[in-house]
Each structure stands twice: as C-alpha cells, then as structure tokens.
C-alpha cells in the first residue's frame, strides 16, 4: 500500500483532537476509565482507517461518534449484566440513556482533563503516563516505548491511575479558585517531568525520547493558549523552548555530552530562542514573578550570548539571588554558587557550597561533587578536582554524564 499524502497529517490531528473528544464523551457518560478506553479505541481505529480512506470532513465528529458508540455498547452490556443481577434480586431493571445529539465541545475540557490526570494524589509515574495517553493522545505502546517498559506494565499503570481517579470522585470541572493554584502547579510539574525525561536522553532510542520533549512543549503550549495570562505557564513554556533550543549542540556525534560553554552556538535554534525570550519577557512585565519565569529568564540570558565568554553572568547571578529567596531547593543554591564563582571567582563559589554539605537532600548528590570539582579546577587545585570528578562519576546514574565526568578527570589528571 502506498501511503497517501494525508499520512503525516493524521497523527498530529489525532493528538490535538484527543482531549476534546475525551472531554465530550466524559461529560456525557461520566465513567472516566471506560470513556478513556472508548476514546483510545476510536483513536486507534482512526489511525488505521484515515491514512487509507482519507481524513473525514468532520474528524472530531467522527471520533466522538465512534467513541460514543463504544461507550453505548459498554453501557448496554453493563446494564444487561446488572439487570440480570437485578432480576435475580427482584429489583427494577436499569434503562439505557438515549443518544440524541452530538455532545458540545468545551475548550476548557483539555484543562479539566489535565487537572484530573495530574492530580497531586497520583504518583508521578502514573500521572505522566495517564497525561500522555488521555490528554496527549499517545497510544499505550508509544508511551511504553518512550519509557522503556513493557506495554502490559504501562497499561496497568494507566488503568490503576484511572481507577484511583474514579474512586476519588474528582468532579469533571475546573477546580475552584482556592484549589486552582496548587492544582495548576502539579500540572506544570508533570509537564516539566515529561519534558525532562525526553531532554535528558540518558538511555534507549534517542529519537523516541526526544518525542517526549516535543510532546511536553505541545501540551504546555495548549495550556498557555487556554491560560494566556498565567505567568508561570508562560514561564514553563519559555523554559522548555529555551532549553530545547540547544538540543542539536548538546551532544556530540557519539552521543557524548557537551557542556554549555563548549557548545557550537550556531547550532542553537534561533526561532525557538526568539519565541522563548518573547514569552518570558512578556510574562515578567506582567508581575507575579514565579520560579519557572526566573528559570526561563536565566536560560534566556545564556541563549542570548553569541559566545560563552559574552554571557552576562552578573545578570544570571542577580536572577539566581531572587530565585534563591523564593525557594529552598538546594539545586538552586548550587547554581547560585556557580553564578557567584563566574562573577566573583571560584573561591567565592566554593564558600557558598560549604553549607550544602549539611543539607541531606544534596550532600550525597553527584552534582555537588561535580560543581565543587569544577570550581577547584578553576582555582588551580587540580589533584582535588580529579578526585572529586571521579567521585561524581561514580555517583551519577546518567551514562553520558558519567562519561563526561570521567573524561574530564582523565584529561586533568594527564595534565598534572
């Protein structure tokens, strides 16, 4: 079979329509787990038929109809099962609902679904998998491949997540104003984790995992369109774009990690940088500065330097100082120490690292050793740096990072 020209359009179209279709079906039938299965079946049917027969005139209506039919079948069989039980128990049989018209589409459905799938009570692995399937429109097989787990395991993870949503009886509507900020922050965190999983291509087929970054950007873009005035949503989207812009320069031909200051900056994606800079600048002008906006602003300062030596480190240091007052995340403290070293010299940075030895969240972390090794190297303490690079290499669980740290130690030790 020769693939028709519509092939390439089908997949993105299905992914965009998935949450709209699911929202429409859930509002009709309520039963989230069963509705989600019905929509997934409709998406799979479309993925098989549309490339062959062409995209229907009303693709969303087509998907909704197929999903509704599946749901009606499901409800009928549930009813006949329960009626049989009711007859035995001497109760009146249940009546099937009548399908009159096509359910209406509500643009907020995507947001409602995200709030549901990223509910703070769900463990991260479950929230990530469910979000990618129910909101992202990815198949179980695609998600399983991206996370390098068997399809059956991932299917179970999704099914358990759906059951726990059903049991918690979270209503299918936007959370009220009181709840909203907290719930939005867990949505953003899940999107951030999906991006990160794709960006840190630490193992497995690199392409598959890069797709996760694209998927995270696409979903965050959708949230930004629905909540254009939320600075943190804009900040996260900007952070993703500004980080992802460096993708082509971040690894060498053998997959080896290239640090920011050694990257070929002509390989950076200028269009993504321009979009990210515009987003974060607009968000910062609106006030209500949040962590994602500050992270994005820092990424923007890096991305705007044509050469590493042109980097405006005093500005980065100022931004990290604001960020450090806002959060007690030790990774921020670590980066603040690096920025301090870039402005005031390695010893000033090393002084700021000392208190982190007592912070159990980071004291055993390879990044603390790696940063200290870097600063010691810059301060001329080469032997100490070599030993700390090796300590860090032994602790990290990222293969490219381990290779980078080992090479750094080897190079420095030969120069001793």
């Amino acid at each position, binding site marked *: 079979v020769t693939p028709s020209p519509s092939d390439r359009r089908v997949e993105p179209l299905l992914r965009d329509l998935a949450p709209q279709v699911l929202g429409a079906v859930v509002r009709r039938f309520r039963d989230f787990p069963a509705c989600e299965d019905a929509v997934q079946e409709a998406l799979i049917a479309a993925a098989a038929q549309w490339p062959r027969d062409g995209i229907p005139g009303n693709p969303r209506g087509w998907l909704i109809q197929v999903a509704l039919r599946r749901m009606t079948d499901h409800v009928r069989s549930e009813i006949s099962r329960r009626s049989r039980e009711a007859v035995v128990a001497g109760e009146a049989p249940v009546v099937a609902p009548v399908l009159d018209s096509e359910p209406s589409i509500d643009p907020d459905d995507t947001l409602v679904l995200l709030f549901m799938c990223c509910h703070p009570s769900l463990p991260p*692995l479950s929230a990530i998998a469910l979000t990618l399937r129910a909101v992202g429109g990815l198949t179980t097989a695609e998600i399983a491949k991206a996370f390098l787990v068997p399809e059956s*395991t991932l299917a*179970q993870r999704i099914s358990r997540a759906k059951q726990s949503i059903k049991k918690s009886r979270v209503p299918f509507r936007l959370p009220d104003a009181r709840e909203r900020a907290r719930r939005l922050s867990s949505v953003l965190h899940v999107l951030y984790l999906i991006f990160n999983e794709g960006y840190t291509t630490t*193992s497995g087929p690199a392409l598959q995992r890069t797709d996760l970054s694209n998927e995270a950007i696409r979903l965050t873009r959708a949230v930004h369109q629905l909540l254009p005035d939320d600075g943190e949503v804009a900040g996260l989207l900007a952070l993703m774009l500004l980080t992802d812009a460096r993708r082509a320069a971040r690894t060498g031909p053998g997959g080896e990690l290239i640090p920011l200051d050694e990257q070929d900056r002509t390989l950076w994606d200028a269009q993504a940088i321009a979009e990210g800079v515009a987003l974060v600048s607009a968000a910062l002008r609106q006030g209500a500065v949040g962590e994602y906006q500050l992270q994005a602003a820092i990424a923007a300062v890096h991305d705007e330097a044509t050469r590493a030596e042109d980097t405006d480190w005093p500005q980065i240091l100022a931004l990290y100082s604001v960020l450090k007052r806002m959060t007690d995340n030790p*990774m921020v403290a670590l980066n603040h120490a690096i920025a301090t070293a870039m402005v005031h010299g390695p010893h000033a940075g090393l002084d700021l690292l000392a208190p982190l030895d007592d912070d159990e969240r980071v004291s055993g972390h390879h990044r603390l050793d790696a940063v200290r090794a870097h600063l010691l190297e810059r301060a001329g303490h080469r032997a100490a740096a070599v030993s700390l690079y090796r300590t860090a290499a032994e602790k990290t669980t990222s293969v490219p990072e381990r290779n980078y740290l080992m090479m750094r130690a080897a190079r420095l030790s030969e120069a001793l």
Partner: protein
Amino acid sequence: MKFMLMMNTPRDGYAWYMSWPKEVIEANVAFMIELSKKLSAAGELVSTEGLASPARAKLVRAGKDGKPVTDGVFPESKEFLAGYWIVDVDSPERAYEIAAEVATAPHAGDVPFWIEVREVMGSHKDLR
C-alpha cells in the same frame, strides 16, 4: 527510576534449593508467580528472569583467533546470581519495599534471604 533486585546464591545454593521439602517448593513457586503478577498489575515490573544453576555456567574469553575459549566457573567464586527483577518505581524506598517482599519468599531453613538492590543507569534527572 529503575532498580534491579538481585537474589544471589552460594555455589551450592541450587543443590540446597533442590533438596527442599515438596510443600516448601510448592509454596515458593506459587509465591514467585504471584509476585510477578502483583508487580505487573501495579505497573512496576520491567522484567524478571531466573537463571540456571551455576554448575552449568561457563567463563568465556577470546582466544588468539578471536574464537571463544571456555572454562568452568572459578572454584573460589562464592556468590552467583540466581535471578533478578527489574522494577520501575517512583522512589528508592519503594524498590526496598519490593525487595523486602521478595525476601519473604518461602524457603527451607531459617537463614534469611538477602536481596541486592542496584539502581539502573539512565534514571532521569531534574534539570533545575
């Protein structure tokens, strides 16, 4: 985060295993099947295998022509891998919990099972 849970055995471990009473073997087999089902249903199982007896293990090196040269395992080797589980979980604590459950597998005698837990390279990192 992925972890490998390893059950190790001394050189004569398999002979000991083969000599268990019938009820204990049955309970052990049922436990292992049930455990796999449970981990899979929890969406945590990546893979699990049991290995054949170290009595059949070979040490292999490349000969001068690149062809394999085989030998039996070293007599001084004390520990052998008997089987493993790879799980994908939200935290190291959850991996330890599963390991503790594995360690309750029915077996003969009163020597406890020790499970070695190792993180698999490639766990994702927080960029911030």
